[in-house]
């Protein structure tokens, strides 16, 4: 990302990209790729589909930029497209394919302090990833948007197009299920 684009708001970058500025679009991709990947993972429950969906999401965003209104916030618009891409990846012929457990991430980064700690940490991560992958997509989505992305209920409500009350109830259910799956909980 070039320095002069770093400080630009998403909406400004989107307007530039819509005008054909590839650097601006590249900057948007860099800025949002990890969040979009995680969102797509939350929609698909596995790394391969998440990759397909995240790539597809950005291509669709690029294609749709001419119709994007910079007066509207860019983030929810992007997330909505990405979520739809994630769901469509599952719809596109993968219905009969069992979800792959969350531990299938390609080239998972694992900066390991020591063999035993690493094994322990990996095991915990794998269990958590499996538990997350085992959630229904709508619960996984709110969980990722809240716990991983740190979005507010209002922002999640916009992204998921559900009422704030539903956001709260889904979060509550998601956390209960995760606690149960991980053997924790009071």
């Amino acid at each position, binding site marked *: 990302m070039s320095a002069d684009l770093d400080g630009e708001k998403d909406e400004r970058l989107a307007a530039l990209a819509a005008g054909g500025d590839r650097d601006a679009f590249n900057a948007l991709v860099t800025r949002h790729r990890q969040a979009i990947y995680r969102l797509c993972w939350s929609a698909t429950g596995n790394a391969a589909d998440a990759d397909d969906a995240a790539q597809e999401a950005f291509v669709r965003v690029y294609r749709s930029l001419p119709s994007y209104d910079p007066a509207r916030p860019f983030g929810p618009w992007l997330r909505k497209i990405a979520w739809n891409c994630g769901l469509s990846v599952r719809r596109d012929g993968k219905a009969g394919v069992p979800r792959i457990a969350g531990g299938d991430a390609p080239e998972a980064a694992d900066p390991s302090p020591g063999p035993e700690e690493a094994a322990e940490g990996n095991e915990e991560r794998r269990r958590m*990833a499996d538990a997350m992958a085992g959630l229904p997509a709508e619960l996984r989505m709110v969980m990722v948007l809240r716990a991983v992305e740190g979005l507010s209920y209002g922002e999640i409500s916009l992204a998921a197009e559900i009422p704030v009350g539903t956001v709260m109830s889904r979060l509550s259910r998601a956390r209960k299920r995760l606690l149960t799956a991980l053997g924790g909980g009071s």
Partner: protein
Amino acid sequence: MDCRETQTLLTAFHDGELPAAGRARVEEHLRGCSGCAAMLADLAWVDQAAGVPDPGPAYWDRFNARVMDRVEREADGPRVAVLRPKGGWMRQQLRYLVPAAAAAALVVVVVRYGGMTPGPPGPTAPPAASEPAAPVPAGQRRTKAEPESRATKKAESAAVARRVPPPILAKERFATVTREERDLMADRSLPAGNVEASRDRATAPAAIGVPSPPTTTYQRAPDGSPPATGADEMASGGQAGRKRMTGASALMEEQQGAGKAKSASGMRIAKEPSPGSPCELARTLAERERFREAEVAQRACLAEDLPAPSREKGLVFLAELLDRQARFAEADAVITEVERRFPQSRPLDLYRQQRPMVQKRQE
């Protein structure tokens, strides 16, 4: 505030979404209730543990390049939007119904008057009643109610006969053509292509390790300007390439013939991108044994947003098209890609059974 009420509010409290008054009350309860405090700790723990497996730095290093590569190809290649038919439902229906009605009227004319006067030279064999309707230029469309001379009718039927596609015997030659696709072929003589077939959405065949041929001709530039001609696109491809691609353009125009002629502003509409799908075009070209052009169209088809089953079949069909050009190594690469993306692919299994014969024919 009791435990039950506290626990109802605990999620919102934990997420910082509780108004100040409610927050103070929950905090007060938590100070005196270890059970609820433990539940709050659980929420914090599960949030901290919740995560998505990170694909790692190598993945992110390539991510932008892959997106930008697809974006660049989209900018240079066909756009899905331009392949969609313009106009509403009624207009789309008319594209089918008007030529079909005209063809039906012509069948009546031919059956009634055919053979009574010597016909003009050239291809004959007017369509049988059971055959699909042929595209008819609007200027030649008549209804039964319109009076016209026998000579006019005869000339018209001859013109239609020239436009009738050759018998679809070739469909049997393609191992990867399914029954549904054969049905589609049978309908291909209807103008304007299959509207629904062009509504697919897009994923480029990014991972196919096969050199991409030049872009196809039936596309509109990103700025919305009219589509480039085959000759434009094939500028570096030699005269033969030019001829082939111009032929493909002609075929696309032929497919949308009725739509063009029907337009009030004829010339302008004539330059509009074809509503036909490149997937259909690929089948049509392959059927006519124009495999190179079919391959180009098929790649354009695969650059669209296809559902996985269509992509699977489309890739297998691309492999067959490459085999039919004796480009076996490239076909192998496509097949490898199909194996990778669609393990135990049934279309691929079927094609594998036919492949030795296909390859033998090209050797």
